Each structure stands twice: as structure tokens, then as C-alpha cells.
């Protein structure tokens, strides 16, 4: 469990960090995935630049109708932030499901998002929230939607030299109910499946439904068929079941020691139903 030799730098500013990354250094932001991979020698960067110490990226800010979460904000700060809990409760709830206390005190929003583990929790919420990911490189900034950012297993739309600077999520409108339901892989605590749901009701009907799914397939996704099935209904148990049955539509389910593709798909449907019901319960 000893990594290859590597150089480590903890720059004081983002610009300095970006310069190092442009020169080929590997960004480290919490180290909850990269460090174990290095210790197992599955990753062997020559140089590591530690972003987690950049205080300038650790924040939760409310700007207009959005919350901006800086990339080095640790999961615990997201989970416990009064602003996130009241303005975007789905994100806080999801953060509380990540790993364990130690991991939530080390791991960061930017690190998790940029790593894009197919079983990570945040991507489900960010898909459902239609979050925007702000990327920054030596040549400037650009903003990508969550749907475009999460590309494939451990693959994002980050370009060489770019890092995640912040994540932007909406301040939920009144009457929105949200919920995250997760089946834990019992050994690792990662999601066998994780379903993030946002629903809004008006005039007795569901006017908006957003469902993000993680763990089921090679990459997180929005279950649009299920969303469409739910919208316009009254949200009865039958409506919920009909929508939940569509949550895995089009997904190529993963299979491993802990859950076969068939069982995983089944769990996704069961927990989609539960998460929708819980979210609807909070719309009042």
C-alpha cells in the first residue's frame, strides 16, 4: 500500500494551481479516490497539486435563484450548510449519504464530480437538479450542464488542464419536494443504486418531475421516461409505480458480486418508487 514516488504541491491560489495542472500535475481534491488508487499503484502521477487547501474554492453562496458550491467544499459542509438544507435540500440530503463521517470530512464536491465514479452519490442529485458545472482552465472558464458533464465511467467533459471550479444548483421554488434513496453496497458504501427525485405540484397535478440515477449503469443519467410518465398525473400510488417502472429504461445495468444487472434494475425501480413517494410527501 505504498504509492510510487511523487511530488506534492499545495499552491496558495487557484491561478498557481491551474498553472501547475497545465504543466501536467494531477489535481487532488480530498483524495478519497485518487489516494487509494495511488496506494494500489493503479494510478502513478509524477506530480500532485492539492486543490483541497484552496480556501477560495470552499464556499456556499446564494446568488439570485441559484446556490454556488465551491469545488473544495467538503461533503460535511454541504450536508450541514443551513443555506443548502433550506434552499436545495436534495443536495444536502445526498451529501449525507456519501461514505462515512471521515470521508465526508475529507472528500470535496469538485473531487467527487470530476472523478465521476459511476456509483458516486452526487451525480444523481446533480442530474435531477439540472446543475451547472463551472470549469476553469488556464485559458478561462466555461459552464457545462450536468447532463453533458457526466460522460461515462470515470469520464467527464473536463478538458486537459481544466478543473471543476464550482457547481451551481437551483434554489428550489416553493412547493418542490425532493428525496434521495440509496441502496448501499454493503462493503464499500457506494451506491448499488441511488435515485434522486425532485417533484413540484400545482393544481393537484405534478407539474415538474426530475429523476437522477446513479449506480445502475456506467454513468449517472436522468430518467426522462419516468419523469414524463409522472408529470401531469396526480401522483397516486399507481402513478408512482408506473413511473418508477420506467426508471431503468434505456440503461445498460451493471452487474457485480453485490448485485446482478437484474437485481440492480429491480432495486432501481423499487427505490425510485420510494423516492418519488417521499418527495411527493414533501411538496405540501
Amino acid at each position, binding site marked *: *500500500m505504498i504509492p510510487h514516488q511523487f511530488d506534492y504541491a499545495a499552491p496558495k491560489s487557484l491561478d498557481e494551481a491551474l498553472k501547475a495542472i497545465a504543466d501536467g500535475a494531477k489535481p487532488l481534491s480530498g483524495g478519497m479516490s485518487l489516494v487509494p488508487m495511488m496506494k494500489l*499503484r493503479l494510478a502513478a502521477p509524477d506530480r500532485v497539486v492539492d486543490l483541497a487547501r484552496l480556501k477560495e474554492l470552499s464556499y456556499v453562496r446564494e446568488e439570485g435563484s441559484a446556490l454556488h458550491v465551491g469545488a473544495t467544499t467538503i461533503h460535511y459542509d454541504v450536508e450541514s450548510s443551513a443555506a443548502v438544507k433550506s434552499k436545495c435540500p436534495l443536495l444536502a440530503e445526498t451529501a449525507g449519504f456519501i461514505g462515512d463521517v471521515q470521508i465526508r470530512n475529507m472528500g470535496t464536491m469538485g473531487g467527487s464530480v470530476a472523478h465521476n465514479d459511476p456509483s458516486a452519490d452526487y451525480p444523481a442529485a446533480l442530474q435531477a437538479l439540472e446543475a451547472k458545472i463551472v470549469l476553469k482552465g488556464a485559458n478561462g472558464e466555461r459552464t457545462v450542464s450536468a447532463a453533458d458533464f457526466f460522460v461515462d465511467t470515470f469520464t467527464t467533459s473536463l478538458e486537459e488542464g481544466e478543473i471543476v471550479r464550482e457547481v451551481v444548483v437551483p434554489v428550489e421554488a416553493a412547493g418542490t419536494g425532493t428525496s434521495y434513496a440509496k441502496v448501499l453496497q*454493503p462493503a*464499500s458504501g457506494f451506491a448499488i443504486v441511488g435515485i434522486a427525485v425532485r417533484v413540484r405540484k400545482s393544481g393537484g397535478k405534478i407539474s415538474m418531475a426530475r429523476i437522477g440515477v446513479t449506480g445502475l449503469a456506467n454513468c449517472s443519467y436522468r430518467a426522462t421516461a419516468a419523469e414524463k410518465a409522472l408529470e401531469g398525473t396526480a401522483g397516486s400510488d399507481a402513478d408512482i409505480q408506473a413511473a418508477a417502472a420506467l426508471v431503468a429504461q434505456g440503461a445498460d445495468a451493471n452487474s457485480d*458480486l453485490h448485485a446482478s444487472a437484474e*437485481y440492480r434494475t429491480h432495486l432501481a425501480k423499487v427505490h425510485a418508487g420510494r423516492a418519488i413517494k417521499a418527495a411527493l410527501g414533501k411538496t405540501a
Partner: protein
Amino acid sequence: MATTTIIKKHEPSIGKRLRRKEDPRLITGTATYVEDLQMPGMHYAMVVRSPHGAANIKSIDTSAAAAMPGVAAIFTGKDILHIAGVPCGASLPGLRVPDHKILAQDRVYFVGHPVAVVVATDKYVARDAADAIEVDYDVLQAVADPEKALAPGAPAVHPQWPDNTAFTFHQEGGDIEKAFKEADVIVKERIVSQRLIPSAMEPRGVVASWHAAEKSLTLYTSTQVPHLVRTLIAQMLGIDENRVRVVAPEVGGGFGSKLNVYAEEALMSFVSMKIGKPVKWIESRRENFLTTIHGRGHVDYYEVAAKKDGTILGIKVKLIQDLGSYHQLLTPAIPTLSVLMLPGLYRSKNMSADIIGVFTNCVPTDAYRGAGRPEATHGIERMVDILAAELKMDPAEIRLKNFIRNEEFPFPTATGLIYDTGDYAAPLRKALETVNYTELRKEQAEARKQGRLMGIGICTYGEICAMGPSPATPAGGWESATVKIEPSGKVTVMTGVSPHGQGEETTFSQIAADALGIDVEDILVQHGDTAIVQYGIGTFGSRATAVGGAALHFALQEIITKIKKFGAMLLETEDITYSDGQCTCNKTGKSISIKEIAGAAYRAMKLPANTEPGLVATYFWEPPNFTFPFGAHIMVSEVEKETGNISIKRYVAIDDCGNVLNPLIVDGQVHGGVAQGLGQALWEQAVYDDNGQLVTGEFTDYTMPRAHMMPWIESGHTVTPTPVNPLGVKGVGEAGTIGASPAAVNSVVDALSPLGVRHIDMPMTPEKIWKLVNGRNA
């Protein structure tokens, strides 16, 4: 000198929930483990290991590694030919014993097999150098499943033994043919006890330091058996045993996995002798998964014959033991313990067992908490439930019907044991009362009406503990203790057992404090260093207190006899009593304290007749028998149909381990044991693929039970002291593990029984249960 001062009345410590003396150093992080040792000139070793389950080694190129700055030496298989193989301490008729060299020769037999060792000035250089060693392999087909290994045409693990059979072993008692002929009913089942990874919190580690001028070796190793390691390492390396010192410093758990002698212990000693420097090797967790022994690994075919009133007539088993690629210290002996345990708590005198020990391209199996007894108990307790279901009998009733009666003790079993004492119905009745069994069955009937899957699982178990009488063990089953009363009157106890989490520094202090009538804090217990402690056997098989504590008891009796001789001399009377830390003249009431007596014994101005100066006594105690604790566990569960999730509603553990010296420690043993038993029942499994790759090679895939997964354990006791030792204690280290897995599986099978489910193999993962709920095989 003699005074009449009243010394405070000794308050007995035995039976009290004393906090452990060991804990402050463990909790504050100031204990010294092997990894904490530093020595001038220390070098660091890394072991290059096979990535293949089976392969021929074509060549090893060490040149690039040898050229790296800081690399002191590299050794491969050709360098260690003079060192004897890793010892197998078990002997069975016709046992095939492969030559287990400490580094692979021309072939590797399991993933993790040591191929080379590199030693350098720091561990980072050593690690990089290990990567730079190039081994060219010709990969062969491996076989990792014991039943596949027995199939015709299977790849041979050891080419010289193409049937992959290390041994077969048959034992029977009574008249099994007659029993099965007379049976009204015969039930059969295939029952698997899957491979488990012991996962001690501290992995193994070795520091070897050779002192060339004295031709002596000091070996620090994380072990349960320092004296056995000393004897066997001296033999392997050809060093005089009296010039080998083995120290087990703080040892962070073992669960049987450190009841062994490992290749690395000899290898690091060899390296230190070669380079003339102290050498440290610390096992990584990955290495621990791959190369420290695994436990269990049974596929058992049971048959039970019974009368239709539920009377068990006979038990047959064919037991397939996955041995792995080599024999470690006790590998082939472990399934023989299963056979001994086969009658369980039941009266049937007819049994027949056949063991087939099978080589596979996996790391060897060996003793893991319970060592053969959990496997047997799991099988027999599952079979009793299957029989009860077949006969539509209540599982509690069928057990009560078949228990050995109290008046039948000592009870000779069909497997040749003599059960010491027992009251088997008592813990079961207590457990049934605790859960309010009659009401609970009504509640279950109600739940079933509502379509809910609720289960009640009972396990009643026996154990073979306090290992053991020497003739029944491979290396001697006695234990030793020394009591030294220092000139100041403070007391040092040296025990031959080598505790590694069991708390004997506390319980042995209690034994000594109560015998001597002094404060627990006045006693220091030392262990684990062969240069300090007289020869001992070690801690395993629930023996430390039941054998080592008894040895201490007898050493204390000897020292008290000597104390009284000095007391009589000093008080100038033969009419004395020793209590509360003082000798008192029965006529005058004059007394003299242990401190004053000790002072006089060492000052030796005057000695009692035929008495040597000093106050030291050593006792080696040979137990006349094993002890046979027993108990009953009940688990209440509910299965969620939609997902297959099992929730544990109640867990009751009633154990009879004889007298309880420290209830806090006993509770801890039961809790930890239940956690490990539930771990096997619900989560843990070592899975090898067909190429011999360990799929569950990290904690990210091997599911260890964690605190939040545990039920509240309602533990209690009945007390039936054993006559085997003077303390009346039977051992409790393994009880929880033995009772838990059958209780859990019986509970979930009971929950699913309305669906026609009769047996579930472990671990009972949610997916397996979900499939059964949906009417499919798991």
C-alpha cells in the same frame, strides 16, 4: 516486625465488571505493535508475490531492482534451499504434505505466493524495487473450487497428486447402518460454510534482528504463539533454540490467523542473518487478504436418520475441506475438529464422517475463530431444523427431546469425547423465556396472515474448549504460569498464554488478587516474550483462562504455601491463616503482611526449614480433559419481500461458559463472536474466480460487519461450572461465533418457510433472498 495493624479486608474482584487494564494504552494509541518498532540500521523488506493462481516460473530478473540506490539485497527461491519448509503440525494417516518452501521454487500455487524478497534502506525504495523485479511466468490453469478440484480431469494443484486429494479420513461411532435402517425418516442436505478472511485489525508484521557475534536472533512477530514460533523457526533455520528470542508485542487481534508459523517469519530472519541488519516487514491489507490463512471452506453433505417422534438415531456427513495449496500449521487438523463436534448436544451415539481434504490454488485455510466447530454446529443445527420441518415439529421441542440428560454426564460421545458437565435445556429455556417464545410464535402466525415474512431461528450449540489435553493436541495442551512476589510485595505474573485482545492482563490479575488477598493494581501480568516468560503454548481454542488461568491458580497455591512458611516463622507459630494479604496467628491475632514477608524472604536473614530464599513459583498444568461449554441463541428476523433485505428484530445469546470471572470481558467476547458469526451468515465471503484470483481482495468488496449493521445483543448466562479445572471456567472466546450463524440462517429459513424454502447457504445476501422470495433458486 509482626504487627496487629488491620490491613483492609480484601474485596473479591472475580465476578466484577472490571475495566480492562490493557485499554488505556490501546485507547490512547501508546501501545507498541511490531510496526512501531524502530532500531538503528533497520532495513525494510517487501515480498514479490505471484499474480497468478498457478504458473511455472520461467525466469526472474532482479538486475534493475538490484541497481536501485538503497537496495541492500534481493533473494529468490534458489537462495533459501537450506531452510526447512513452513511446518505442518498436524499428522493424519496418509497425509500428503507438499514441501512448502518460504520462497517459490519453479512454480507458484496461489495468488500471493512469495517469489522474491527485496530489502532496502527504506520501505519506499523497497516497494519500488519490488516492482522492478521481473518475473516471467508460464501461466497454468488453476482450480479454486474444492468440488471442481475433485472432478475428473481437473487441473492438478500439485502435479505429483493429480486427484488433488491431500487426505481422506473416516471416523465412526455406534452402529450407523442400523440407525439408518431403523429410521422412519432420513433428511439430507448440502451445506456450505464459505471461505472467510479472518481480518485481524492489525495485519501480520515481523522485525528480525540477527546478532552475529552471539549467533542469536530476536524475532518480533504479531503472533498468538510466540513459544511455538521460537521452536519452529529455530528448527527451520538451524539455529539453537536457546539463542532465539521471540517477542509478541501488542498484537492487534488474530482470531486464529496468527496461530501459525508463516514463511515471512523465517524469511525475514534469514534476510537479517544475511545482511547483518534488523529487517522489518509489515503486511499490507492486500497481502493480508491474499496470504494470511483463510477460515472455513467446507462443502458438507449431511444425512440425519430419525424416528417420527423426532428422536435422532444417527448422523452421517461427507465433509469436503478446501485446504488451499499448502498445509499451514494446523490446516488438515481443522476439519477433524468438525467431526469431533458432530454429535452436538444430542444423545445419538451413531455417527459416521468422511473427510476429503482437497488442494486448491488458493491461500491455505486454517484455524479461524471456532476452527471446525462453527462449521459442524452450523451443519448439525441446520439439519435439526430441517428434520423438525420435515416432521412438523417445533424446533425448540425437537432439541429438548434429543438433548443429553443432566444425569448422563460425564457423557461419552460417539466421537470419543467425554462431555464434562451440562444442563443443555437451561440456556434454551432461558432464551425462549427471554423472547417470550409462545407469544412470538403467535405474533409470527399473525404476521404470516398479513403476508409478512417473519422468522424465529434457534441454535443450541456445544463447544470443545480449553484446548486441551496434550495427547489430543499437536504441540502440547498444557499451560504454564509463574508468580513472582517481588521484595516490595508487588506481584508479577508471567503467563505462557499470549493474549492478543482477550484481556487476560485483567482476568489473571483478578485470579491472583483474590488468591493473594491483595489489590488488582498490585499485580502486573507479563506475556509474549520468550526471554521473560517460561515456555507456554499460547492463546487459541478458548484455552487461555481455562488452561492458563488454571496453571496460574496452582502456581498461586504453591506461592501461598511458601508465604505461610515464612509467615509461620516470623510469627513464631504454626497456627496461622493467610487471608487479605497477610498471615495471622489464629491465637494471638498478630499478623504480618505479604510485603513484610516478601522482604524477609529476599533478605533471608533467617529461613524456614527446607525452604529456599525468594518468593517465586512456576506451575505447568496439564488439563485432564477439554471443557464443553454450551448455549442457545435465538434470532428473530423479518424479510422485506420487495428487496430481500433481512432485518434482525431481536438477538438473544445465552451462554454457559461456567464461572464468569469478568462479566464485562465475557460480554465483549460474546458480542464480538456474534458479530463474526453474523458476518458469515449475512455478509462475508472470500470469492475466488476460476483463475484463482481473489475477487473479494479488498474491504471494498469483502463485507465486514460494522457497528451500524449489528443488532442489539441481549446476552445472558446460565452457570454450570466445569469440574475439569479449579476455576470452573470453560472458555468463551468462540461461543458467539459458533452460535450465531445457525441462529441467523434458521431464522431466515423459518421466515421463508411458507414459500417452501428449506435451506439457504451463506452469506444470505439480499439478492439471494429476493430470488428465493420470487420462487427461484438463489
